[in-house]
């Protein structure tokens, strides 16, 4: 019990140590702010320019969330189809794998041509990267239904519909969430890729423009805000997991 209470201290201590070394190095070496701003510089900029950073956070957050939501809405039904139909499994799975091996950064310019500089193109790229883990993990989960539960359902003459909704799907939920947790962090990356390739707003866009103006502290501050955005979105999905399937976390501890 004692051990667990203080567990969070370890990463904090490690993090503080790295920041201290970084700060000491910048102070000692008198390295240019453009090459490497100190942690203090980055924090100062994060706070002083917080209105700008916050304004640019919203578009990136929305692009990520919408792309993720679309990946869930399309990915889960597709996983259900794949898991329950041999034909669909055989025909769709190889296409999915092929799609996944196409580098999304390379596809981004094409998507920009299709959807323009606005929200839609970022949403599409975020969707593309978030889609795969959700489909694969959900399909895996649906196929991993414990044999005993399926046998129980059969002994009770449950219909296919009842077996799916009352047994297969709930049993797959932990897998769905582990896919969703990977997907949400990928969605943020997808949104930033989209912004890099072409956009007029967002944290990725801000990072690029600050960089081109040699305003490194602002670029680094944008990076920090991006990381925080990723962590917050991840935590939101993890929280949803704990609320929706509390049984899964109690059994794993």
């Amino acid at each position, binding site marked *: 019990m004692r051990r667990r209470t203080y567990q969070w201290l370890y990463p904090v201590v490690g993090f503080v140590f790295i920041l201290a070394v970084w700060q000491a190095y910048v102070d000692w070496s008198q390295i240019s702010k453009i090459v490497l701003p100190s942690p203090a510089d980055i924090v100062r900029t994060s706070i002083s320019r917080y209105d700008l950073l916050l304004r640019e956070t919203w578009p990136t957050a929305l692009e990520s969330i919408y792309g993720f939501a679309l990946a869930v809405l399309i990915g889960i039904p597709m996983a259900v189809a794949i898991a329950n139909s041999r034909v669909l499994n055989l025909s769709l799975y190889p296409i999915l794998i092929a799609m996944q091996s196409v580098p999304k950064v390379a596809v981004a310019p094409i998507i920009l041509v299709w959807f323009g500089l606005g929200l839609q193109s970022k949403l599409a790229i975020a969707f593309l990267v978030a889609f795969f883990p959700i489909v694969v993990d959900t399909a895996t989960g649906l196929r991993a239904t414990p044999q005993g539960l399926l046998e129980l359902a059969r002994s009770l*003459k449950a219909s296919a519909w009842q077996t799916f909704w*009352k047994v297969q799907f709930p049993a797959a939920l932990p897998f769905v969430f582990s896919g969703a947790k990977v997907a949400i962090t990928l969605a943020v990356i997808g949104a930033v890729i989209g912004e890099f390739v072409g956009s007029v707003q967002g944290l990725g866009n801000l990072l690029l423009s600050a960089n081109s103006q040699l305003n490194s502290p602002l670029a680094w501050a944008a990076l920090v805000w991006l990381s925080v955005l990723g962590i917050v979105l991840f935590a939101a999905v993890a929280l949803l997991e704990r609320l929706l399937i509390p049984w899964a976390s*109690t059994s794993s501890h």
Partner: protein
Amino acid sequence: MAAASRGQSQSAPEPFGTFRHVRKLFELPGRPDVVAIEDISFDLPDGKLVSLLGPSGCGKTTFLKIVGGLIPASGGIIQIGGTEVREPHEDFGMAFQQPNLMPWRTVLSNVLFPMEIRRESGQSVRRRAQELLNLVGLTEFENAYPSQLSGGMQQRAALCRALVHEPKLLLMDEPFGALDELTRMEMQDLLLEIRSRTEATTMLVTHSIAEAVYLSDIVVVFSKRPAVVADFFEVGLPYPRTTAMRYSPEFTALEHRAGRALGIIR
């Protein structure tokens, strides 16, 4: 065929279940077929507890699943209540070696699962589930999740689930096999107590000689695979059974008989 004739010689009313020359082979691609069950014939009298006793892998679980309609036989006659078994039946209840509780449902909700599948709900259904949980001593754990329960408690909840729809035939596949010895003996007494209140005919698979003799009206001993009936005998000890009976000469004699049928005592 001694077993079959013994079953038929009882001039009792029509038996609840009839099994004649039941045979099962598994077809394996690229390999010769495996005969799991050679020839099983016996009668299942109404309201009795019958144990299928046999070595591991002898086909007794396969036989139980055939009776439950979960898998088809390769040949023979399997009749329950006068009709041929082809698929699972509403009047059957099954308990497996693993409790198979759904981790996302509370204990009460797990017990109510069969009723949900039959689209039956309401106060009386709920009350019946709660009575069963009370009978097995799980009232306080109604709203707990399976992961918060010990193995024995989970198996008790699974027993309630198998009984909640008042089945006419209760099929149990080594339900206490995964439990430690003391919990196992407790569960055996619990099963007998539940049985004294419900009339369900029960067929129980076990590989424990003592368990078969202690629980049953009738013991059917299966041979090694491919299974035939090696012996079929009535226990004849009165219910309620007590732990003291386990050490009586009659009990030991029956254990010896089963042991000889299994080929472990010569």
